[in-house]
């Protein structure tokens, strides 16, 4: 037997998606991703690690790159659709 359903209950997935869109699909998030990428791609310099082996270096760089691509993917998903008919600036008068 099906469990009782509360028809007035909010749809968490929809609400969450809207919130995520407002956060992720913004220029501020793009800047954040840029900063994260900057850190990831400079990690061997920032880490002050003198004993980096080729293996460590290779793994770190490509893992950081993959993370950056994942973030860009996330950003691209929540970008608004492009609309050539964007709002017009105000007219005089």
């Amino acid at each position: 037997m099906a469990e009782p359903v509360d028809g007035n209950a909010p749809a968490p997935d929809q609400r969450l998606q809207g919130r995520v869109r407002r956060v992720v699909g913004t220029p501020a998030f793009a800047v954040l991703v840029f900063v994260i990428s900057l850190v990831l791609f400079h990690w061997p310099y920032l880490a002050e690690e003198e004993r980096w082996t080729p293996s460590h270096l290779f793994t770190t760089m490509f893992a950081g790159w993959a993370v950056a691509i994942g973030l860009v993917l996330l950003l691209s998903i929540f970008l608004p659709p492009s609309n050539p008919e964007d709002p017009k600036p105000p007219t005089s008068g």
Partner: protein
Amino acid sequence: MFESLTVISVFCFYMGLIFALAVWAERRQAAGRSVVNNPLVYALSLSVFCTTWTYYGSVGYAATSGMLFMTIYLGPTMVVIFWWGLLRKLVRIKTNHHITSIADFIGARYEKSVPLAALATVIALLGTMPYIALQLKAVLTTFDMITYDTGVASAWIGSHVGPIVLALMVVFTIIFGVRRLDPTERHEGIVMAVAAEGLVKLVLFMAAGVFVVYSLFDGFGDIFTRYSALTESPAGLGLKPRAISFVTWGSYLVLAASAVLFLPRQFHIAVVENQNEDHIKKAMWMFPLYMLLITIFAYPIALARLITGLPVEQADTFVLQLPLKSGHSLLTLLVFLGGFSAATSMVLITSMTMATMISNHLLLPLVDWIPALGFIERHLLKSRWLAVTCFILMGYWFERLVGGQVMLVNIGIISFAAVLQFAPAILGGIFWRQANSRGAMWGLSAGFLVWGYTMLLPALVTGGWFSHHLITDGPWDLGFLRPEQLFGVSGMDSVSHSVFWSLLLNVGLYILGSLTQRPNQQAQREAEAFVGALIQETMFSRGGRHEAYISLPDKRRRIETLLRRYFEPAGAVAVTEKCLRETGLTDKERISITELAELDNEVEKNLAGVVGTAGAHRALTSAGVFTPRESQELSEVYGEILASLRARPEDLKRRINFLQERQELAKHHAEELEEKVAELQNQILRRKLAEQQLRESEERYRTAIEYSNDGVVLIKDNILWYVNRKFAEMFGYSSQRDIVGRNLGTIVHPQDRERVQEISATRRQGRPAPARYDFKGLRKDGSSLFIAVSATSVLYKGRTVNLAYLRDVTERRRHEDEIRQLSRRLIQGTEDERKRLAADLHDEFGQSLTALHLGVRSLASSLPPLLNQQQTRCESLTDMIEELAENVRKISSDLRPDMLDHLGLVPTLEWYVRELAQRAPQLDIKFEAVGFKRRLDPRVEIVLYRIMQEALNNVVKHAQADQVSIRLTYSHPTAIMVISDNGQGFDLVHMHPDGEQRQGIGLISMRERVASVGGSIDIRAEQGKGCTIRVALPERPPAETGQSMGIESQTWREA
């Protein structure tokens, strides 16, 4: 190794396939079913960024500079994050202005400046020439590596491989990209070819990587372990991060980040060929992912080859040498083909773009400058073919000049540094309104000169073109002018040094020049159109309505005349018609000045697709579309518009801010509304689903109840409130409506009515009531039936109602009664048989034994005394006969004591007790009989006797008791016998948890005997506490005992 002819043939075959693919894509485009207009193809076509530099050079670079090679791909990854704002804006501007190349873009932005576009073309030309050289060097080197020459043809090819490859490149470029003039400068076929080649080179490079890592070695870990085990790094290769300067790392990132958009071929693919701005979104992550995949094996391959001891000088060809040295010919050929693919796609796009730029921004201005060259305008296509040929030849020349001494990567960096000079002019042009042509010209010129001096010149010195003295001591021995230590700045590598100085001067002069020149109206219009591209509207929509007095046919003739310089007559008419259609002027005779301006803009946009924006503007200006009066009026209109924009800057700014806030607010509200709508839709969906589930559930329950084989009833206040079909059918009603609403008593026989109503009321009041019971029901026609009920109380609509399930058990009860009757007859028959058998034993066998006894005794007394032995035998026989007689009597008594018939119940029981006491001396038996003054019915007496007999036998056998008491009482008209013992007892419930069927034969026999005379029996036993049997029998049994199937109280069970 392969013959040269074979390799060339394979290459031609491969290019044929690619060409077929391109033609197919163009036909699909013509049919309106574009295959190129999708984000995957767009992202793959961007892979033209990965040329032979990536294919061969990344391994070489990794082998010489470690992880520095990754900057070429990490830089673009960082910049794609902003593509939605940056690239989308460039694409929008391209669409609005029919931009055809990066030089066209710069010229169009800065007042349609012809000199600027020409300068940008020269920079692109000189900047990309090394890149072409890089491709040719890679192709020629690898071609030599995998070929040998045996036959005449192969030998000839081997000695002329350079010109042959050049010729093939030129032919393919012309066939693919420049075989006709296209006003839109969009080439779906070539984009498809580039995308396909991008896929080919990715797959083949990864195949080579997998082969090296997993076939020659045991995976990544094995390579790293074996490399670490080397006692000495083969050439001090700087694989550790500290070996790479932070400045160098940053400089390379900046160079690569700018190159991914500002290399002419990248600009063409990313901007000019873009068909849908939304494709950018997917390209933002697909393109970096492509770069990650194509480079993931570069570093391991570099290490692998170093482990095997190959010289670092050959690092550029590691990826090809590994399968070649391992003897994998097919893989070698495929890897070579991948490299060739990478080279051709780059050469093809770059040559095509450069040909457009050269013809539009160098050749056509030259034609304007030198009227004698006017015939070139009618041979624009051929001039582009010539440009393609010259451009590729220049690349080949550069390769011959410096290619032998410089690694691939260093050649590529020269190009990157050149196109970096476009960055300030383009980025400033789309984000800074005040930027103007002076700033752009100063910045570009300075950056270009510094690049040439600090980067190109050292490369030419390396190639032997100039003396090395120039590098070490500077021109004229002026140390502060040393190209790689300009103004004494040292401590940086040559690339960082060049980037530093060129960018510093470029940006500085760009800003300075822009700030020192006041922009004119046209410059302001262009700036507004570019900076506000994403919120653009036509300037003329601000200008209001004006009088339509200008003759359109006259203007049309002038426009067609102009277009005939670049198109065939029919084409010129078609373009004119298209422009009129686009501006909505087709059917008009007279137009206003603003409409004429819009038409002029439209024509300019269409012509820009052929000759570039600056060229189109120049052509229209010279064509005299506007009369002096019209120009004056148009200037006034512009003045009005700009005045309205400038009149109240604070107000304007406030209004813009206000509207932007409103726009943000509206956007926010729209998103919230979107969420709410989505939530509501979700709720509606869930509610519909719930309703559907409810309906289905209700249907299931209704079906289960309505079609149940049991009657179901809801009783409220003794009223039948709901009944199912079976219930109505059970009580003989044709429909449920006939019985619903009636009193409960309607369906109960008067005999049980009061009891049933009492049970119902008790349950309704919440007090304990039997959950299961039987009653005698009453049908509508007056006949009776027996009903088994299972009832409970439920809460319905806030009130307690009784819910009952009824089953018709009439048939079952009839069968039970029949069994009971048969059982009683069996008992009676058994008793009768015992009685007859006992009588026979006593009367016949007993008498015979008595006669025999007398005969033997008589015989013994008659024997003479001398026969002592015989007398003794006779006495023995006499004893045996007496013992036999005693046994016969005992058996007879066991079967049925004859004293029961003769002396009555009490003496018989007393006798039996005495007998038992002798057999079981450990048992203390007390017997008491009260009130027996007359005989009971013989049937009752035998029942009491048998019950006592059975009970005492059980005591002796199982109870382990030492005391037992029997009390027999007569109380008219009932005889009661109670037998109690102090034995171990037994668990009555455990003994028969499912009812009487599990009871022992003895107990069943007792119950049946009691029932046969209409009495009752009560057995109480408990583990460890003995057992008590109470039997109450009528003095005389009823005539038809058990015939009535009335309710028996003992069948009730509490819930």
